[in-house]
């Protein structure tokens, strides 16, 4: 590809040659024609290097000393990468810029993974860098971009060496110093994971003595006390139960928007993982219900290291598996997809391999260029996804209808909605965050509250109905914009409270909004952006107040941050459950009433 410098030199030299020949000026002719010939020779050499020498470069990458194509990582935990570009045979390329293409989910620490090199012979080129994942999910390192230049800056070519490695990034968790007391305060210490409740049960510690009721087992009769009081007395023991924690994680669209590491989903995953870790270190069972617009996925409460990693894996899936909401096709989306495709699959966009069908329309050059761009993009992306279909076919041994594939790939040229969906899918697969233009803000604002409440209510009610003892329900849900109107969810929370369970609602706001200080006055007049930000913060705070009032009325604890404070709040709720201090009274009757109300509503 010619640079501007080459284009202008060719133009001037060609004009100079023509004028020199026509005017019979020897020096002008010689100089101009000489420049033209020189440019031609340089182009020849450059093209030879790009077409016949560059393909001999191979790439290998080791991450923390391992060259495996898959693996596990942890959020915010740095990893060392060694990238080696080695020529298979002896080649010579005078100037090449090698850059590791990092997805948006990765942050390079220190020096960027890019370097300018001259390749001579078989000497391998090495780039070392350190990076860290910013958020949980799948992390794909696609390969290395090569930008080749000649020494004069006349020609330029870009190639990409594919070397995909995919890693699963697990959410990080906080290590809290909330270990159980080691001092022995009771006669018999229950085994780990078992807590004494100040309620009658089948434990080993005495709770109280009461009068004998016919039907009490004879072995529970306290004979000495009975003899002293002259009436039969029965020993009643404490109940020893585990405290179960169920985490409800909202992975709907509204929690995914924004940059990696700053989304509300990332905050929720951090809190969920930390609570799970802390509870499981005390051998309390932890379960998980994650839900998005496709439905809920449940993991039953359990304990153990293996179960903890299963939970982490499921939380990671929450950050990974989801289809974006359909957005309309816009030029921004196309341009972004084009630039990404040009960077990562430049060979597939090559004009040489993409034949454009002849058509007079569109007539205008700019529209024509857009149309050609779309055709090339469709060809490249359908090829990309055909490869994925091939892999699918190999894995599942089920044939894919290829004729249909061809028609559907051509359908993309005329069906804007389908094309927009494909571009969205492509950008998300390539590791781009859910923000404009990948996902339209409009579709986030039209959030479907009824569906979310229905899913959450059903999941919570089912958990309550299946609960054995006191349980803690931690709802990590984005509820800010519902305006305090919780609908059927309010009934489900009331039901849980009526059954002596505790409910903790964590509804975080994006970090950039929580940092805004409305109290300080500025010397300069505020810009329109600042004013809009303040208005948004005010709106959110008002919504928070309404929501908090409503939830406290229902008996749930609330937090609008998802950091260590929120984790401590959840753990304090766990401690309350461990000690058995829950509301008493006419709970059972309340529960029956609410239960019938929910059943009636769902009918």
């Amino acid at each position: 590809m010619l640079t501007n410098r080459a284009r202008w030199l060719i133009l001037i030299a060609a004009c100079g040659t023509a004028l020199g020949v026509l005017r019979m000026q020897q020096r002008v002719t010689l100089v101009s024609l000489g420049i033209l010939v020189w440019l031609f020779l340089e182009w020849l050499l450059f093209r030879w290097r790009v077409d016949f020498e560059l393909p001999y470069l191979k790439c290998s990458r080791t991450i923390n000393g391992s060259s495996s194509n898959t693996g596990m990582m942890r959020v915010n935990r740095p990893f060392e990468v060694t990238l080696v570009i080695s020529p298979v045979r002896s080649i010579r390329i005078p100037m090449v810029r090698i850059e590791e293409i990092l997805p948006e989910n990765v942050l390079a620490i220190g020096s960027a993974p890019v370097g300018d090199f001259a390749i001579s012979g078989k000497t391998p080129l090495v780039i070392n860098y350190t990076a860290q994942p910013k958020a949980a999910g799948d992390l794909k390192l696609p390969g290395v971009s090569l930008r080749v230049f000649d020494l004069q800056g006349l020609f330029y070519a870009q190639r990409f060496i594919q070397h995909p490695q995919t890693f699963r990034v697990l959410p990080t968790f906080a290590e809290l110093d909330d270990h159980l007391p080691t001092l022995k305060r009771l006669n018999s210490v229950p085994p780990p994971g078992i807590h004494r409740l100040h309620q009658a049960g089948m434990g080993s510690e005495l709770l109280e003595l009461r009068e004998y009721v016919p039907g009490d087992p004879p072995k529970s009769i306290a004979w000495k006390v009975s003899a002293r009081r002259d009436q039969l007395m029965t020993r009643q023991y404490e109940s020893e139960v585990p405290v179960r924690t169920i985490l409800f994680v909202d992975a709907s669209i509204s929690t995914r928007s924004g940059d990696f590491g700053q989304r509300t989903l990332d905050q929720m995953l951090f809190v969920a993982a930390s609570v799970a870790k802390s509870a499981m270190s005390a051998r309390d069972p932890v379960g998980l219900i994650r839900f998005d617009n496709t439905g809920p996925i449940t993991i039953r409460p359990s304990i153990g290291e293996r179960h903890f990693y299963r939970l982490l894996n499921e939380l990671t899936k929450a950050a990974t598996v989801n289809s974006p909401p359909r957005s309309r096709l816009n030029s921004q989306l196309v341009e972004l997809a084009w630039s990404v495709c040009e960077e990562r699959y430049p060979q597939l966009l090559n004009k040489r391999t993409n034949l454009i069908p002849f058509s007079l329309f569109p007539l205008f050059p700019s529209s024509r260029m857009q149309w050609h761009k779309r055709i090339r993009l469709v060809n490249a992306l359908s090829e990309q996804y055909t490869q994925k279909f091939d892999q699918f076919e190999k894995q599942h041994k089920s044939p894919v209808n290829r004729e249909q594939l061809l028609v559907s790939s051509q359908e993309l040229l005329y069906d804007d909605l389908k094309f927009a969906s494909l571009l969205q899918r492509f950008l998300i697969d390539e590791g781009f965050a859910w923000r404009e233009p990948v996902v339209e803000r409009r579709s986030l604002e039209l959030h479907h509250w009824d569906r979310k409440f229905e899913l959450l209510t059903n999941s919570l009610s089912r958990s309550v109905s299946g609960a054995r003892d006191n349980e803690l329900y931690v709802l990590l849900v984005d509820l800010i914009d519902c305006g305090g109107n919780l609908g059927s969810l309010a009934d489900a929370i009331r039901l849980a409270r009526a059954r002596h369970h505790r409910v903790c609602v964590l509804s975080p706001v994006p970090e950039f909004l929580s940092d805004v200080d409305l109290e300080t006055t500025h010397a300069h007049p505020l810009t329109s952006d600042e004013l809009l930000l303040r208005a948004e913060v005010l709106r959110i705070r008002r919504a928070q107040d309404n929501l908090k009032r409503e939830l406290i009325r229902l008996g749930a604890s609330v937090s609008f941050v998802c950091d260590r404070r929120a984790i401590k709040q959840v753990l304090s709720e766990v401690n309350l459950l461990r000690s058995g201090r829950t509301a008493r009274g006419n709970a059972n009757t309340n529960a029956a009433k609410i239960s019938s109300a929910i059943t009636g509503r769902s009918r």
Partner: protein
Amino acid sequence: MNSESPNLQLFKQPASVIMYGLTTTVLAVIMWTILPQEETPIPFVLLPLFVGFLLFLRVWTIALLVLLFLVVLILNEPSRYDQQMQPDAILFAAGMLVFVISACRFYVSSAPLVNVKQTPLKSTRFFSWEHWKPSRVPHSIQPRHAQHFTLAEVWTGLLRACFTLAITMVLLWLVPLDLRSVQNVRLTPSGLRAIVLGISLFFIVMLTSGILSLFAWKRLSPSEARVYLKSTLTDFLHTDLRMYIKQKLKQRRARLKGQ
């Protein structure tokens, strides 16, 4: 590896680069002042201006300077009707080529190379930045390392210039100046030469490009080959496919409207 931003690197020139530029400039000045003594096509007044261009202006274009030289040459050089090459003209051209090659190499380190994705007519911005979305570094080249500026490079430049000049002279010698044909087609001799030269150049470029493409074609990756095959097939069937798909879309729209 370089951790600085490309903008900072742009304004950072190693001492060896400056030395290289100085040497090139001095060589160019000597050639222009000594070689064409008889006619002196370039006024001496312009020389300090060129030196200033070379040494002090960082953002400039080689093309602009070449244009300036050529304009001065066209305006000052007298016309000659002989086909014989004058030795001073050959030497002058060689010096000029060495200068252009050296200047290009010298300034490649400071000028960001713009990847032109537009048509040539639209590429009026010489060295403007072009940012990639999302937040990719622009296409710039960092200053080269000192060890790249060796004497061998100067010799290579000289050799290339001589080789280029030899090909140029052969090309000019091959272009005929037959007076009979000139009379037949009623063209001026110089017009005929320009046409023949243009056709020869075009033919050479096309032939070379074709041969290179032929070899490169065999080295396509499976993905590229599939894209080519698929695009060829859809090129044949485009009209039918378009009709079929548009009909399908129309039906879908009608169905949605009905619902």
